[in-house]
């Protein structure tokens, strides 16, 4: 009997000494209560109106899950482990599980490659008051997982050494899926799974880890089960530039036939090609373009142009999709357009076809011109017509004759509006309507008008692009200026600070000198008194010499 009692007591004492780590932001958690944040995040349990979802049920779920995790805090508790033990809708249960995981009440001290959640605070404090099972928790580190200790240390150190800032190349550089993660400390690539560990939210490669911990203790704690399966280290991960180039060429040439594409890119298999294409920024669009408009295969443009045009693409507003869409329909008719349009033709391939094929082409142009703004469209139309007229005098005639025709049929419907409006904008809008209207009516000089319309839209698009680029540049300048200003301010503050310190130093110096003089005086006085008193001078040669040596100033 006494044995059992002792065992019970000792286990209780053992449990009292166990420490569990939870983030400081979860300090609201109490075994006996349900906190407001729980009610807020999981309202379906507290609304009533349900048999299977009630506060009591929620509390049972929560307590069970947390206790189950604490049976072995170093092992990650999965949802599947939990749901087999508990009765209830898996959907609601999953919400509870995710809630607890988010707040770090479970799966917090687990350090394995799969840890996805970022920790709320770098320094972790364990706080738990009034535990049910006699668990008492102390701030500091948990003894149950040494890796946790190291992470706290590393967290402290990492406060002084920040990870390298993302540079442009990181953010906009070529994205290689699975090419490896970058260590937060040394910036080198490393393979995921085996070597990484997230210390204070910063991924480290094994070398840096060893550096900080100074021993291989970490590796012992990372059991093989916790590693992400490093399976994808095959050639599927790294796509070099040449391979991507081959892939894009092959896609343009062969369209949808993935076997031929895989043949073209010799080093990658079909699935890799498909996934790579999808992951490229314009990959989806290319697929869409190719599958629906395979007859435009004759317009293969060099892939080099993709890169610069992509940069521009990112800036362009949505109107471009419309531009490029309706261009695609008429692309076969256009010849001899200036080189600027070469870039645009590249863009055409990249965007999905804007094929609202129920509308006629001219309607599309009209709708586009209304979208882009009457001023721009009118100006562009003018410029385009001028250019075309210069190119070919027949065009001019065609436009002029049409202009005559224009006045008569158009004037009746717009008569009222003409009389009423004197404003410039409306005039422009009408001009556009006229041009569109006229185009629909007269079939005589369709080709020229078509070309004019196309050139119009292209010019308008170019104008827009320039405006957007200018704005971007201005914004960049502004940002640069503000950065420089901030730096200058910093420098100013530092200078001020240094000057203040200098002043203090000077004062100190003068004080010290005064003290020295004072001491000197005293000594001289003492000697005088001694002389007068008749005491013989000390024969000690050392003494004055040492004093002499202290008179440097």
């Amino acid at each position: 009997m006494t044995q059992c009692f002792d065992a019970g007591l000792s286990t209780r004492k053992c449990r009292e000494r166990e420490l569990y780590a939870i983030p400081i932001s979860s300090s609201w958690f109490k075994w006996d209560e349900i906190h407001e944040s729980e009610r807020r995040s999981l309202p379906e349990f507290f609304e009533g109106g349900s048999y299977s979802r009630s506060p009591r049920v929620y509390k049972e779920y929560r307590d069970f899950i947390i206790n189950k995790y604490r049976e072995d805090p170093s092992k990650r508790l999965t949802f599947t482990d939990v749901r087999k033990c508990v009765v209830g809708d898996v959907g609601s249960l999953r919400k509870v599980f995710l809630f607890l995981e988010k707040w770090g009440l479970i799966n917090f001290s687990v350090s394995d490659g799969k840890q996805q959640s970022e920790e709320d605070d770098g320094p972790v404090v364990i706080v738990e008051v009034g535990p049910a099972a006699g668990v008492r928790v102390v701030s500091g580190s948990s003894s149950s997982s040494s890796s946790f200790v190291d992470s706290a240390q590393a967290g402290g150190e990492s406060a002084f050494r920040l990870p390298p800032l993302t540079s442009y190349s990181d953010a906009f550089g070529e994205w290689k899926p699975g090419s490896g993660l970058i260590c937060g400390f040394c910036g080198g690539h490393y393979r995921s799974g085996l070597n990484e560990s997230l210390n204070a939210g910063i991924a480290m490669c094994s070398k840096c880890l060893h550096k900080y911990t100074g021993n291989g203790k970490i590796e012992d704690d990372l059991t093989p089960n916790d590693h992400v399966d490093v399976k994808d280290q095959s050639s599927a991960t790294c796509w070099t530039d040449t391979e991507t180039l081959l892939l894009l060429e092959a896609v343009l040439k062969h369209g949808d036939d993935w076997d031929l594409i895989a043949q073209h890119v010799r080093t990658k298999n079909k699935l890799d090609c498909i996934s790579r294409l999808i992951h490229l920024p314009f990959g989806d669009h290319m697929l869409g373009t190719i599958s629906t408009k395979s007859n435009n295969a004759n317009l293969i443009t060099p892939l080099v142009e993709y890169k610069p045009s992509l940069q521009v693409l990112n800036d362009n507003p949505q109107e471009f999709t419309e531009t490029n869409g309706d261009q695609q329909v008429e692309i076969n008719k256009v010849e001899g357009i200036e080189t600027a349009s070469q870039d645009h033709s590249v863009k055409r391939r990249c965007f999905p076809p804007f094929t609202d094929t129920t509308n006629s082409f001219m309607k599309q142009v009209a709708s586009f011109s209304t979208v882009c703004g009457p001023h721009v469209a009118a100006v562009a139309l003018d410029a385009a017509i001028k250019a075309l007229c210069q190119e070919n005098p027949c065009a001019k005639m065609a436009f002029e004759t049409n202009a005559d025709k224009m006045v008569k049929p158009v004037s009746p419907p717009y008569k009222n509006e003409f009389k009423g409006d004197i404003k410039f904008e409306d005039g422009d809008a009408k001009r556009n309507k006229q041009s569109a209207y006229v185009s629909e009516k007269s079939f005589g000089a369709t080709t020229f008008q078509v070309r004019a319309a196309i050139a119009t839209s292209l010019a308008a698009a170019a104008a827009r692009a320039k405006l957007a680029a200018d704005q971007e540049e201005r914004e960049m300048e502004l940002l640069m200026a503000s950065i420089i200003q901030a730096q200058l301010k910093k420098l100013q503050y530092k200078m001020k600070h240094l000057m203040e310190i200098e002043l203090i130093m000077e004062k100190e110096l003068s004080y010290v000198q005064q003290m020295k003089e004072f001491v000197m005086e005293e000594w001289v006085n003492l000697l005088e008194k001694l002389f007068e008193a008749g005491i013989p001078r000390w024969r000690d040669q050392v003494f004055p010499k040492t004093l002499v040596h202290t008179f440097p100033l």
Partner: protein
Amino acid sequence: MKSHPPCSSKTPVRFRMPTAENLIPIRLDIENEGQRFKDSFTWNPTDPDSEVISFAKRTVKDLKLPPIFITQISQSIHSQLAEFRSYEGQEMHLKERIVPIKLDIRVNNTVLRDQFLWDISNLESDPEEFARTLCKDLDIEDLEVGPTIAVCIREQLFEIAIQGVASARESRVGKKGRRGAESFINSKMSSSSLDLVKLFGSKGSVVRKRKDWYLYEPIVDILSNEEAEALDAREVQNARLKKKLDEKEDSFQERS
């Protein structure tokens, strides 16, 4: 605290899949001149019908099947869509009901058997997310398993949802005549679901007994290639035998 049983039947909604996204499961199993095409996926019923034929064409092209499959695939999809749409106009009474969902699937070399509980009235449930979690927790590497799980769940949810509608229809019919039919149907349905009052009431506990935990645990088996092929062959044989039997039965019935 003793709470009176809350109003457990919610206001009736238009028929739809009781999941966050209204996607219906489509299963294809077409055999033609020795070639067998099996597939399962989810379909968005709000997609235009023209998508079906383009999907069929794309599939046949990608898998290099003979073109006769195009019509058969699109027919199959259309008929399944039509079945779903036939229920669409009706109202669905979603009482809170927790039903067991069972999985018994084989995808390439992975065999999975599992069962778990699902609340049919939870309109925010997400089979795809459940499938993803399951594959992640069990470290299943084959990427085709997840979608298959989701489709399987959706199929079962669909069946149960139909029951909700069909019984409503029958009960309306039954009201005129046999009143007993309604209660009979209801009790038949609820026998497969949990007794909510007992379990979630004040005396029950939501935690299962340990000895029952193994029943609700997923079991994953990885087969070797030979075993998988053997199972495939047996399945094909079974399908053929079944087809023959069905044909015989049909002809027999016609005669008689």
